[in-house]
């Protein structure tokens, strides 16, 4: 058997798995009856529907008439740098304060660009920290931990 539509095949698998997971999770909540539904009823049947439709998507992708698609290669470097930079910013926000963590976010995420250069990354970081200070903290009065907690 040949997988012709790889995009649909893996999407279908994903839907089946996620749907089944939600249904399975719903069984730990009370189901109730149609007239008096428990918290598990609606998500259980939604999950079942999702799994069934996901199976349809997967089967369709195997049929002879399915169009041929490939999944483009993942650019792990970009994913790792961008997601990593955001996660790091989130993790350091409370301990290092907003200025330092935003600075880190900008500098680190800049590595994801194919035209990275230190002066521009640092310049952008300084500019954006200033912007955050001016627009969000001064202008909109959002409450952030501002400075590293060990200094405060």
């Amino acid at each position: 058997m040949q997988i012709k539509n790889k995009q649909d095949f893996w999407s279908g698998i994903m839907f089946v798995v996620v749907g089944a997971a939600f249904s399975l999770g719903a069984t730990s909540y009370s189901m109730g009856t149609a007239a008096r539904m428990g918290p598990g009823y609606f998500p259980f049947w939604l999950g079942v529907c999702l799994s069934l439709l996901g199976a349809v998507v997967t089967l369709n992708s195997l049929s002879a008439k399915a169009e041929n698609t490939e999944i483009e290669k993942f650019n792990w470097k970009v994913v790792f740098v961008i997601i990593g930079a955001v996660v790091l910013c989130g993790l350091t926000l409370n301990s290092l304060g907003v200025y330092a963590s935003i600075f880190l976010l900008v500098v680190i995420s800049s590595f994801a660009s194919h035209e990275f250069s230190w002066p521009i990354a640092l310049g952008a970081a300084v500019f954006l920290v200033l912007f955050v200070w001016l627009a969000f903290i001064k202008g909109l009065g959002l409450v952030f931990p501002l400075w590293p907690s060990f200094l405060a």
Partner: protein
Amino acid sequence: MELFDNLMLGFSVAVTPENLAYALLGCILGTLIGVLPGIGPVPTIAMLLPITYVLPPVAGLIMLAGIYYGAQYGGSTTAILVALPGETSAVVTVLDGHQMARNGRAGAALAIAALGSFFAGCVATILLAAFAPPLAEVAFKFGPAEYFSLMVLGLVGAVVLASGSLPKAICMILLGLLLGMVGTDVNSGVARYDFGIPELQDGIDFAVVAMGVFGFSEIMNNLELGDQRVEITGKVGSLYPNKQEFKECWPAVIRGTAMGSCLGILPGGGAVLSSFASYTLEKKISRNPERFGKGHPAGLAGPESANNAAAQTSFIPLLTLGIPGNAVTALMIGAMTIHNIQPGPQVMTSHPELFWGLIASMWIGNLMLVILNLPLVGLWVKLLKVPYRLLFPAILVFCTVGVYSLNYNVFDILVTAAFGFVGYVWSKLRCEGAPLLLGLVLGPMMEENFRRALLLSRGDYTTFVTRPLSLSLLVLAAILVVIVALPSVKKKRDETFVEED
């Protein structure tokens, strides 16, 4: 005339210096961010939403409406100048708008888009003012069963506007509904799918998913293109359309307005469907269809007007039924609930100043945008020249700060990052985020009405088909499904989408 009294009340609210300032600020911010490539109204509103929290309800919603229209205008500008649609409905704008720009008629194209949208906005505002009250009367006849059927219709509408395969789009909706189940169950108080994490008991915020799935994954997709990313150039030409273009435009503008106004009322149909429908119509009835896709002004004017009219009338289901017509109005519902206003038919009687003020400020917002955009075209072009290596860290910063400010909680930042990764995977699998977001918003509402309807009917499922209003809504939904599923229509749908490339 009650209509005029109401409109007067609206204008008296909207024309206070303070509210005018917020409308203007919203328009400017919305345009500034919406004009950035790849950022459409949804991320723009998601980003700027927290700003409105600190304002009084009326001012907050007025500003939000301003942001909405601003972002939409900004999106068309990018679509025309650099063929980068900031949102799905701007995809149609690219077809003929960008071709006009290539022919050296960029200025004319921008002016046509702005004026067409303004005309559509004016008409739709009047429609909104005239028909929202009777529609609200209808809304009172809506029981839980009707609401459920209406949401089914809305979700089916969302399927129609997805460009990919039909079962996949339905799957994404179901996935969105399931994600909406995360959090505390309102009826029993049981925390569902929270994995013992207290932050998840409040559910997953719409903005968190929107920024991850749209904002972050868009950035990653752009970055991996590297050198091949579309370079941005600025060539605007003379600003005003000539006589010939004007003559070709105005019938399209009127047809687009009519079409958009009707489709916008349908929850879930929204602006996207209307611009595609209008483009198809214009091409069908044109005497020289071969000029479409090569810079025919009607191919730009029709969809742009339809888009704006639909954007306006999509506030009818939002304000009268409390049903979001698209992802943007879904965000507005979120904003309203934060201001302690329950959207629905009672808004009109309990908060008349808010209701009519918002309608009046929509028109004012449209006017401001024309005034803003026509002279500022040159400036927008300069803004587009910001190199992407500076632009994307800025977007990341805005998203992160925006998400954090939702609940002042770092956990939300981490969830957004996770959805960013998931969104990237989805974009590789060609799974669309828009239906998912609609499902996410409608999920809890749908469950509540479903449960309530069955509770009232003592568990009898036929309640959905024995109540005439509910039945007709379900029949409409079924008709929509058949239309989409019919091979001939499907082929046409594919054709429209092939032409975009």
